[in-house]
């Protein structure tokens, strides 16, 4: 495989609480290769959105990056100056957020917001900007006449597409998406995902896709990372994870939804609730809820062990002890 365009190494995100600092993201590492579709799944509050904002350097105080490196094409984004970072933004990687209604400036037209992004990166020719704006809109299937609309004048689905088109403006190599389809109905979701996938194949950008919807990401992603309580518990090719999930949590997730075909079996959820981020369980964070818990699990935290092409953070897979703790 080609060199990864994004390498996240050991990043930690903390924010202060009255009871001490909480680590929303605790030493997460992952890599994304050119043109790859990486999905990140987890429950609400597991830190996946925070991870996204940390990677894209969009954290808002009091949350802060407490350590680690974010290497984009070899350059550590954490060490870049403000100006250098601004030049990289949008041009090398862009962001799509969950709710376009909130992510688009309500008082500016679509065209103006597109032009802002382009002018911020040295494009000055109004005609060229306009042409490129029309181009990206048609890429997502929206009539360019809507360039002069305000966000509130568009429908929900259209707004999401407008946001996605905006992400394509400077032809970035990586687009990071934070649950961009959650606000849509199921039909619109599928259609939008299919469109994203098509665009990805034709334009060649990589995607990091954060969601809580397993089925959605299972269908469209190449690789999958499962997050729990601020850490990655399993990461590997999607097909492999779905066929034989390694971590008990992943197994629980996959068993939580019924299949349309197949025998009708009783639904199994995962008992308990995610831990308090300030008072984490000892040892493995998942052990209080794990069906396969062993004595060791409450004492030592497991490392990331490789099983075939997947890495699993569980003592059950300790056989091949490779990887970081």
């Amino acid at each position, binding site marked *: 495989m080609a060199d990864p365009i994004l390498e996240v190494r050991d990043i930690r995100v903390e924010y202060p609480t009255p009871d001490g600092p909480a680590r929303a993201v605790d030493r997460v590492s992952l890599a994304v290769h050119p043109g790859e579709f990486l999905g990140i799944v987890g429950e609400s509050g597991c830190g996946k959105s925070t991870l996204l904002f940390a990677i894209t350097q969009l954290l*808002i105080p009091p949350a802060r990056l407490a350590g680690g490196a974010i290497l984009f094409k070899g350059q550590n984004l954490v060490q870049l100056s403000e100006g250098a*970072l601004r*030049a990289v933004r949008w041009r090398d990687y862009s962001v799509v*957020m969950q709710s376009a209604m909130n992510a688009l*400036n*309500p008082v500016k037209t679509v065209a103006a917001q597109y032009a802002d992004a382009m002018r*911020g990166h040295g494009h000055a020719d109004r005609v060229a900007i306009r042409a490129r704006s029309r181009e990206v809109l048609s890429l997502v299937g929206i009539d360019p006449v809507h360039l002069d609309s305000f966000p509130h004048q568009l429908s929900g689905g259209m707004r999401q597409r407008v946001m996605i088109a905006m992400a394509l403006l400077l032809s970035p190599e990586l687009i990071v998406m934070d649950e961009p389809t959650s606000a849509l109905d199921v039909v619109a979701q599928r259609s939008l995902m299919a469109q994203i996938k098509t665009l990805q194949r034709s334009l060649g950008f990589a995607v990091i896709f954060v969601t809580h919807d397993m089925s959605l990401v299972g269908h469209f992603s190449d690789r999958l990372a499962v997050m729990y309580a601020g850490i990655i518990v399993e990461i590997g090719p999607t097909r492999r994870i779905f066929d034989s999930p390694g971590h008990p949590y992943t197994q629980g997730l996959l068993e939580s939804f019924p299949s349309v075909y197949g025998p009708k079996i009783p639904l199994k959820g995962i008992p308990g609730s995610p831990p308090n981020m300030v008072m984490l369980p000892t040892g493995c964070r998942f052990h209080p809820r794990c069906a396969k818990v062993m004595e060791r699990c409450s004492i030592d935290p497991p490392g990331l062990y490789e099983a075939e092409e997947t890495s699993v953070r569980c003592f059950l897979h300790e056989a091949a002890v490779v990887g970081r703790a």
Partner: protein
Amino acid sequence: MRYVLRRLGFFVVTLWTAMTVNFFLPRLMPGNPAIAMMARFHGKLNGQALRAMEVAFGVNAQESLLVQYLSYLRNSATGHFGTSLTFFPNPVSEVVLSALPWTLGLVGVTTVIAFLLGTLIGMIGAWERGGWFDSILPPVFIVLSAFPYFWIALVSILIFSISLGWLPLGFAYTNGMKISFSWPFVGDVLAHAVLPGITIIVTSIGGWILTMRNNMIMTLAEDYVRMARAKGLSPMRIMMDYAGRNAILPNLSGFGMSLGLVVSGAILVEYVFSYPGVGYIMLQAVLNEDYPLMQTLFLIITLAVLLAILAVDAVTILLDPRTRAAS
């Protein structure tokens, strides 16, 4: 369009309420001040002028209350406000018109300056969070905004007029100077306007700074501001174009609503500085029990506030495309 009509309808209702208050209030008060006041006119006006006065003021013993009320409304709407007691024999309308420019100049200009300046400072203050700006200035301005306008006026007179002698201690221009558009006169007017103007700005700016700061802080947490950062836009553009333009909107509507308060403070400032604007004249009228003048000024002040609100509405429609859809 319907929105505009509804607004105008509201304004008419408000003006009508003010006129009705003017008409009925003296009648409801113990001692019926209206009748008492009319008695004082008896000695001064002859038959026809007196009758005109009675009609203008709506005090006419021969007609029923309803008829008097209606004719009072009609007179008010057409600008017949009667004769002033304090500035006898000038008609009230004349007195009001001569005082209006001074107030518009002083109060109008300084209020707008205070709003714009305060909004700007509040915006920058929220942007640069965490410094001394954020911890010290808000409490300072909170307390400052609780200072009565007129007291600040008194203190500034004490310091700048009496002790230091830099600025005149009252009136709009030096007594005896000819009113003209010549430089000496304009300069004199400006010199007289400095202290009252600064008083108004200093006392009202605190509120704008604080509300804009709070609005801005909430706006800065919005997704579209984060998105603007993600796009790599310059901080100035984010602060002004994405955050500022949205944060100012609730402030604008607050501006309209608070004009009543601004007017209140301005009246007292005019009083302290003997500045011959609408507020000062109104207080003179009160002290002289010159009810026709007082009532009319009340009406005019209400009208001015309504017009200002209308202007603010227009600006809001300009700045916020969502309201255009509604109207």
